[in-house]
């Protein structure tokens, strides 16, 4: 499975708003911890090492 980099989430504005909402009352450390948990949850959901490594590469070079 190749990493999808073309638009894939039609309600992206909704997700973005939800993402900000869960962080809203958090300080920097709590936000970092939440993001870490979120990454682990999404990684498990994707469930494909190759795709995840492509995502890591894209994030690291962006």
């Amino acid at each position, binding site marked *: 499975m190749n990493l999808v980099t073309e638009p894939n989430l039609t309600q992206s504005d909704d997700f973005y708003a939800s993402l900000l909402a869960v962080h809203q009352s958090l300080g920097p450390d709590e936000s*970092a*911890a939440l993001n*870490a*948990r979120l*990454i*682990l*949850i999404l990684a*498990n959901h994707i469930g494909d090492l190759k795709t995840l490594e492509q995502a890591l590469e894209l994030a690291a070079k962006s």
Partner: protein
Amino acid sequence: MPYDYRPFDYTPPPGLTGPEPRHKVVIVGAGPIGLAMALELANHGVASVLLDDNNVVSSGSRAICWSKRSLEIFARLGIADKALAKGVTWKVGRIFHRDQEVFNFDLLPEEGHQMPAFINLQQYYVEEFMVQAAQENPLIDLRFKNKLVGLCQSDHATIDIETPDGPYQIEADYVLACDGAGSAIRGVMGLDFDGELFEERFLIADIEMQADFPSERRFWFEPTFHPGQSALLHKQPDNIYRIDLQLGWDADPEIEKRPENVIPRIQRVVGHSDFRLDWVSVYTFQCRRLGRFVEGPVIFVGDSAHIVSPFGARGGNGGLQDVDNLGWKLAAVLSGKAGTELLQSYDRERVFACQENILNSARATKFMTPDDGAERIFRDAVLHLAATAPFARSWVNSGRLSRPCVYPCAGPDHPGLPRTSCPGSVAPDAPTDKGWLNAALAGQVTLLAIGQPAPKVPGLRTLTITPNDFVTSRYLGAAGQALYLVRPDQVIAARWIAAAPQAIADAVTAIWKGQT
């Protein structure tokens, strides 16, 4: 009751009064690896001289977790029954974060194996059983209080030895350095370890107490009895418990080892003071190895070749797998059945295994002792999620316990057969009409025929078995029959659904050339 350390007898060696004939094999270090090496070589008919600078078994429990694979090796060495009778059998591990259980694992949930996943047994018992077996074996010349002080190598090795009665010299075709992490042979040869030192210290203590803990491995991240650090509890025979406590890098080992400092820490773990302190040590985490394990006539085996952080039981068990790999190869080279390229396959395969052990060990160490910043944030995220999300429980890394690695193997394979018995793997055990399968395959190259008569190949031992459910799931899959070619160390070298005698003979040749 504390272990009764009885010194072994020292006998003046013949070399003190006149030159000894050159020996085939001299093994340096009579710890579990050196002793196992001598016993394994004797199984293959090879005599050895085994030197040790001391005359007593290991002080303190040291290596305590012996894996299923090690028990299968112990069976070949004749000490498995004693080890199983004395040891504490366990297979369940429980992991706690703060004071809540977040995860547990069962290492051997399937039936149909002769050996349990692990036993806990103090290293001094393993050595005691091995010394007894070695002393009863006419092929093993075990010399206590014989200390290696020098070594010269050419096409053979010359060793300088000191004894209570003075120095002498012996020569050997091969010297096996089984002299541990602080190897004197590595020192005299000027060889350095390469790798990683983790800035972390652990206190390790054996205590004797009457307690009702089940036979489980328990690991805590940040328990309230030892805030912010990690802790491990293991049960051993004789009411001895092993407790490991993370101390941090700033701890002073000499101060931490004092009973007045150790005892209060243990009291907080067990909740009372009704125990006796048996042994205490402080260690650092290291993952380091030699570049090569074979240097001319000198071969490094066990901790002299590689050291790993604990918590994966990969030190002692990894060393026994070195012995497993080297014994039949060295015997074949000495008898002329194989050329020295077979020893290069020891180097290649065990370096590969060592890299796997170091990788696992280094990852577990990072998880247990994360640096501040992203390492700690992700570690804590895993522990946090483990309480609610099932997937995260298997991400919790308190040590991935030793399993034999699958060697890279280019031998013939059939893609339809089960992955668990692919070439390069240790032959999975199963009960069969010929007894336990793993044990039945030991010692010689063997052609295992399942559900078909074995093709006749001159000089090749065959074992024909009838499929049952265990054999089918581990060796056949959807196939109705198969042929497996297995090395003397029970590693599968090739497999087919059906094969002509010539193809099998070619695969046997590849084994002796060290290709598979």
